């Protein structure tokens, strides 16, 4: 099974490398076929991986592991040893970096999502990208490999390497194939997230160093690190500090209000495929980071500081993001702001710190990937036809493009959390989990249900319903594209799997939940009956102790 994972990791990378290698030689138009082949193989492999994983899970039963992070499949090989190993006594001080890949339920689910969106991205770029195609698809595929790498890396440093690596292909995707302001958007996105990640790195180093000092021989391994911190918890104040450092990068990545301003810009400027991957999986790296570092290793900080802070910021993000979405005239920007609101739900669930909420949070990660990916896909479709995304220029498209309109209504309903579609179980569980912790946060977050319906249905009302209003299409465009047609077979092939997944998760969420449940329960166990720490009293006690020593 681990071989399967490696093949999966290498296929998009290999296909991307191939494209780059022959970028000058090959016919440009054949690039997309290579990309499609590569992404389809990756999808097939990921599905096989998921099937194998479920079989393994059925065989092993619910994991009895004590560690909050317990991949069922692991591959470990020493990569680099930092420090002196020649003298026997000093070996304990050396820090071992490993190629530590693995799979647990959460990573399997995220990998399948990544592979699925990869195919959708290629299909969405089919006609939209006409310049430097080889490079474009190469960047897309390499990005996909990078993201899969993040999800299966169980070594802290390896995780960070992949985490940062994903910036590079996306930077090029935005900066080369983006809209008019692409340079500004790409630089801002790159520098902002990079700056945040550097602070996160500080946090990761502290985590590793602290454990190494405490005698953990392989402090970079996430499972061992988490297990070690369970046995030797850090001082709560130190936890808060590390939590804050780790959070900076993750909060920017998610993004949580007020660190979100790079996102609408990046989305608006990115090509459709870039937006789909950005919203679908790259934002999830932030929440995934919280799930892998903060929640299992810093329980006191998460409970005492993280919960209220994340809840308040998420609630603000939900309301604020929805309100900002409400007055956008550019549909893509509207969807971008809706991401801020939706990830608010996700964070609200994760920081409920109980099984219900965290399950909801992870489901919301998947759901947002599916439904927002599909929203960007459809926005891209009508942008390709009309070369505008402004609500003022468009109207009544349902008369001209009935199938696309039906798809849009479907996806919007998934996005507003209509029961029967995917958004509902995620949002409902997130809110229910938070309700158990603190009903007020949940009630405030629930206003997002109303606001979400408001802005998305307003968009539907003006863009798809009402009398038909189309912008005048330039003559030369007309020649190239012919008359405006409804969804083509290729577009349907991109949209249908997403819609089917939305429906499947909505009607039958349990199989998906069963895959992730053991891993979530392992983390949630840390918070069962854990009382919040009185940080102030602790500080006072410490100061008194110190002054007592001085006297």
């Amino acid at each position: 099974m681990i071989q399967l994972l490696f093949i999966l990791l290498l296929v998009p990378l290999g296909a991307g490398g191939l494209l780059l290698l022959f970028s000058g030689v090959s016919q440009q138009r054949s690039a997309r076929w290579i990309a499609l082949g590569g992404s389809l193989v990756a999808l097939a492999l990921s599905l096989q991986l998921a099937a194998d994983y479920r079989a393994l899970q059925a065989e092993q039963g619910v994991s009895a592991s004590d560690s909050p992070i317990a991949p069922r499949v692991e591959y470990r090989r020493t990569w680099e040893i930092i420090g002196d190993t020649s003298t026997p006594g000093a070996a304990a001080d050396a820090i071992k970096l490993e190629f530590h890949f693995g799979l647990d339920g959460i990573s399997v689910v995220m990998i399948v999502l990544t592979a699925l969106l990869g195919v959708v991205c290629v299909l969405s770029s089919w006609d939209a990208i006409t310049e430097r195609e080889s490079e474009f698809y190469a960047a897309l595929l390499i990005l996909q490999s990078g993201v899969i790498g993040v999800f299966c890396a169980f070594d802290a440093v390896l995780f960070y390497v992949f985490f940062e690596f994903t910036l590079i292909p996306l930077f090029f995707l935005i900066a080369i194939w983006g809209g008019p302001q692409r340079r500004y958007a790409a630089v801002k996105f790159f520098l902002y997230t990079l700056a945040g990640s550097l602070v996160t790195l500080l946090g990761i180093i502290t985590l590793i160093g602290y454990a190494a000092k405490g005698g953990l021989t392989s402090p970079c391994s996430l499972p061992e690190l988490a297990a070690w911190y369970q046995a030797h918890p850090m001082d709560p104040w130190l936890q808060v500090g590390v939590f804050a450092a780790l959070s900076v990068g993750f909060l920017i990545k998610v993004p949580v209000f007020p660190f979100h301003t790079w996102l609408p810009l990046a989305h608006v400027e990115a090509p459709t495929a870039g937006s789909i991957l950005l919203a679908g999986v790259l934002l999830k790296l932030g929440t995934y980071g919280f799930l892998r570092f903060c929640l299992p290793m810093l329980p006191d900080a998460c409970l005492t500081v993280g919960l209220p802070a994340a809840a308040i910021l998420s609630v603000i993000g939900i309301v604020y993001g929805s309100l900002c979405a409400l007055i956008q005239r550019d549909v893509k920007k509207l969807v971008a702001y809706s991401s801020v609101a939706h990830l608010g739900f996700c964070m609200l669930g994760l920081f409920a710190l109980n099984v219900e909420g965290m399950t909801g949070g992870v489901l919301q990660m998947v759901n947002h990937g599916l439904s927002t990916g599909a929203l960007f896909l459809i926005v891209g479709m009508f942008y390709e036809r009309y070369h505008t995304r402004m609500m003022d220029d468009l109207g009544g498209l349902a008369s001209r493009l009935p199938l696309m309109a039906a798809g849009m209504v479907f996806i919007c309903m998934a996005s507003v959390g209509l029961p029967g579609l995917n958004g509902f179980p995620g949002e409902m569980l997130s809110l229910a989990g938070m309700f158990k912790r603190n009903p007020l946060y949940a009630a405030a977050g629930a206003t997002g249900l109303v606001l979400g319906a408001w802005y998305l249905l307003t968009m539907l009302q003006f863009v798809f319903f009402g009398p038909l209003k189309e912008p005048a299409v330039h003559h030369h465009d007309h020649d190239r594209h012919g008359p405006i047609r409804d969804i083509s077979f290729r577009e349907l092939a991109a949209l249908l799997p997403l819609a089917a997944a939305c429906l499947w998760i909505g009607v039958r969420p349990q199989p998906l939940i069963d895959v992730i449940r053991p891993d979530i329960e392992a983390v949630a166990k840390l918070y069962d009956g854990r009382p919040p720490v009185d940080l102030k009293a602790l500080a006072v006690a410490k100061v008194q102790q110190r002054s007592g020593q001085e006297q």
Partner: protein
Amino acid sequence: MSPATEHLVLWLIPGAPLVAALVIALLGKSVLRERSHWPCWLALATSMVCAILLVTKLAPATFESPDESVIGAMATGYSWLKVGGMDVRIDLRADAMSALMLTMVTSVSFLVSVFACGYMHGDKGYPRFFGAVSLFVFSMVMLVLSANYLQLFIFWELVGLCSYLLIGFWFQKPSAAAAAKKAFVVNRIGDMGLILGIFLIWDTFGSMDFANVLFDADNLSLIAQDHPTRMIAICFLLLVGAMGKSAQFPLHVWLPDAMEGPTPVSALIHAATMVTAGVYLVARSTPLFMYAPQAQVFISCIGATTALIAALIALTQTDLKRVLAYSTVSQLGYMFMALGVGAAGAELATAGATAGMFHLVTHGVFKALLFLAAGSVMHSMGDVIDMRRFSGLRKVIPVTHWTFLCGAGALAGVPLLAGFWSKDEILAVLHEAGHHSDKYGNIFTAVYWIATVTALLTAFYTFRAYFMTFWGPERTPPEAGHHPHDAPPAMAWPLRILAIGALTVGAAVAVTHLFAHYFEHTPGFEPVENHVFHVGLMVQSGLIALFGIAVAWFMYVKNPGLPAKVSQGANFLYDLSSRKFFLDEIFTAILVLPLRGLAYLCFMFDTQVIDRIVDGIGALPRLLSAAPRLLQTGYVSSYALMMWVGALACMGYMLGLFHQ
């Protein structure tokens, strides 16, 4: 019936419409086209037959002994979601209350779908219409058959979706698109309350199943003792949901606009079935509400307010469908009034819920009839529905005329017709509540008098609409063509059948208290000892109805000039009513505009403050480097100068010039 057949019957009720919806969705546009009504008809007929089977199956052996053990039917589905402390199953569960409601829902749906075949004939979206109607019936019966609160919520939202799709059926019309959005968003406000209420139930009871929450009386009273305030909070939150779906003041504003949908939809969803889901929810949760008398009194007061305001607005509307829409709001208010009387005593709770549910059923029949008849008027008048543009249609469209008359009589409460019985029961329980309760007696007496006044208004506006449409000089709008035709058979037969229902359904079950006896077998309700008629009240309400009709006749047939004079004489009051108490304007002013303003501010804040700060921090390194950069001029001469100064300084240092 063997358990296996029972399961089959239960599953067929929602299953058949779901299959029909899928078939129409897949094949409607390409294969079925003008035949798209067939799957829908077949499915709804199946559902109806199964629902009737269910009612007879659930009938207790004798109606005389109320002590007979609780009866119900259950069909297991699947475990939808099981995480931590949350365990949600999709099961089907039926008892007396749901069986009665199902019978009404499925039979009205079937008749409406038959009617729609004629009404929607030739429409471009014909398959889409029947697909959505099938989906609606599926969701609605699943709502009624729910076995837990979360399942109820799931289908509660799905009927909202169908309502959205069908209000916006003619999406090219901007008004329809706007109305659809309004309906969905306003309903979502209610839904937000409902889901929070469900969370609170889950948090308090550790379960969302009706069996654990509602029907386990001992457990319920224990928990209610421990958490009295929680019970009140739960009830108020559930109530918010009910108010949204059942269009209670102030969340009623979406329903009149919903008339933008095709008329069969108005008849089915926005009169007979979906809007009564809130009533069903409250009636279903009666055991919970018994521990929150404040919430119950609030229900009655909200019901009274809604009933009165909607009736006052209905007085001056000139759009026939809007008159009916406001009358629906008003009648839903009646049902709410009845549901609240439990506050006056446990023995009244059952009577109140019975009265409310009975009115729900009769109202479903006669209001569907009225809407369909109005649709038939529209059909023959070339889609004109403004009552000022036609009159004297009684000879032009005779079938429509007499069926409308039956419905109007039932709504107005003409003695012995359907509405008379159910409305009278509501008035009776309110009257009794006013006398029985010490604490809330005055409130219930006031509610009773509001209900009586509303009854008078109802009779008046119903017959105002009737006289304006069917009496007076014969006038038809040009859109109707030269020879307006009456309803074709597919439309006429449902009208006839519903008309017979409107005439008889009340008398058939009310005289013998059949409905009440049956209903009492719903789990969670105390049986009522003795059923009596309040003859005095009946005579009073009968007279009131006839008086209202007489006034309408006097104003609109005898003296057709009078209404204009009255409206001029009471200009302000007339405006208040015809402009719907300015509620839409008020909501826009206090809710929509401020929120949009806030949204604008948020966005400004986003681009002008937050993003500026981010860019500012990004610019910081450049700013900091500004000073050192001045040194890097790029001129060789200045570098040489600096080298020279530096060399001098070094030399000086070495020579000890700086040493003391």
